[in-house]
């Protein structure tokens, strides 16, 4: 496994109107690894993702993306770095005035550093949508799709450029359990097929377990347990946020062994 640092937070604090949303947060993710960030509502999970790609600026500390300090980078310079990152926003954040095809093609067309030839755009969009089993929705508008379908289009949009780092912001929030599991299966599939570095924030411990315990088998085209003993896939780590502070960082086993009452309550273990 490569040891190249993809994302590093160095004592990062982000505040809104003087109130810290995240405080003194430090962690590092290397190429090919995955992190699951757990936390209750308003614990600062989304702020971490937005700070990771420079949508929010840290008030203190530094953020390194692909080895570059983006904390003070200008917006125009950030576009080049962001071209290597895909992000699924909490509610999908699809452009409601554009068709599904235009939504998924947006990054390919607008990220100049990708230099995607015009005649390749359509085929890559179709491929990305077929991957999330929505190949038939090209001409539709986001308002014509269900919540789960919009989330899947968001996954296609985040991955169509084949980014080195993919960020998922609460991908299953507000979805029924069956749709939520389908979404998680797609995220694991996307991670394993492309070996992309993945960061997912979620309130649901079950999502983290799917991400941690399952891998995608391309021969059977389905998810399988990584090991019969229930051990985690290698390179997967958990972070737990509480009121803006990072209170845990470790593996699935360490998380489940933790005696911290907040973490115990969070993973619903008595």
């Amino acid at each position, binding site marked *: 496994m490569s040891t190249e640092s993809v994302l590093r937070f160095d004592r990062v604090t982000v505040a809104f109107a003087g109130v810290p949303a995240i405080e003194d947060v430090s962690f590092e993710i290397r190429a090919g690894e995955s992190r699951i960030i757990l936390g209750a509502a308003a614990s600062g999970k989304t702020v971490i993702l937005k700070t990771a790609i420079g949508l929010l600026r840290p008030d203190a500390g530094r953020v390194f993306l692909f080895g570059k300090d983006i904390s003070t980078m200008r917006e125009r310079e950030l576009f080049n770095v962001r*071209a290597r990152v895909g*992000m699924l*926003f909490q509610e999908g954040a699809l452009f*409601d005035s554009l068709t599904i095809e235009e939504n998924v093609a947006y990054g390919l067309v607008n990220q100049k550093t990708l230099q995607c030839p015009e005649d390749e755009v359509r085929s890559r969009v179709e491929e990305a949508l077929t991957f999330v089993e929505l190949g038939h929705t090209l001409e539709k508008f986001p308002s014509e799709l269900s919540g789960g379908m919009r989330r899947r289009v968001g996954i296609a949009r985040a991955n169509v450029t084949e980014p080195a780092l993919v960020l998922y912001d609460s991908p299953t929030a507000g979805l029924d359990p069956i749709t939520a599991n389908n979404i998680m299966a797609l995220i694991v599939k996307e991670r394993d097929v492309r070996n992309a570095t993945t960061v997912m924030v979620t309130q649901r411990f079950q999502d983290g377990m799917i991400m941690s315990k399952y891998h995608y088998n391309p021969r059977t085209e389905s998810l399988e347990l990584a090991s019969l003993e229930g051990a985690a896939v290698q390179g997967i780590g958990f972070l737990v946020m509480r009121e803006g502070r990072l209170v845990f960082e470790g593996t699935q086993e360490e998380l489940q062994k933790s005696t911290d009452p907040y973490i115990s309550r969070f993973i619903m273990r008595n």
Partner: protein
Amino acid sequence: MLASDFQGSVLLDFLKTPVLSIQEFSLLVGRTIRNLPRRPHYGKDIILQMDIIGVGSLPIVLLTGFFSGVVMALQMSKALRTYGAVSQTGPIVAITLVRELGPVLTALVVAGRNASGMASELGSMKVTEQIDAMRALGTDPVQKLVKPRLIATCMMLPCLTAIADFVGITGGFMIAYFLLSLTASEYWNGAYRALDYQDIAEGMLKPFVFAIVISMVGCYYGLRTTGGTQGVGRATTQAVVVASVWIFVLTAFIAKIFITF
């Protein structure tokens, strides 16, 4: 000493919000102007906005312009009759409409229709994270959303004003011809001769300035929207109120400048 310190801090807190707003607004205007010559230019978006602002506002601008001319002629004729100067209806309607009423009424209509539209559209995009998604996908929202709206408004508002002026003068003619028994040549010659280049310049400069105010205020309130759908409603109202107030303030300033020089 303590009381004055307290008063000072209260005043500082009171001024903080408006000063911050002015600073943020100025930064947005600066960024938009700096982006004007930069690529990409999003020509399709400019055309779409010109259609929304120009063609979309045309019916209400025609209606407003026509009836302001009608009312102007009716009201003026009453006063002018006292001095036996009903024949001066054409010049008075023309000067008032071209210099003042045409630009201001058209700008107010466009502010009500389009500043609110811009604020609500951009505000909805902000609260549903579409603006963040745009930035994440390599697009500068100022370049993609604000610049086309500024260019389109600056191109369409002077055109709409010219149309409103002409339709208003025509409305005045209807009253002068059918109710005041003026001949067509009396009215139109009077109106034509009353206008000089300075009136036209004032009448065309104002919509250009108002266009900058309407588009920038609409986009500014849209882009700073917070707090869900309630926030979108608040941004929309603020955009219309602030744009309208600035139209009245600026028309007074511009009128004073033209009168002085």
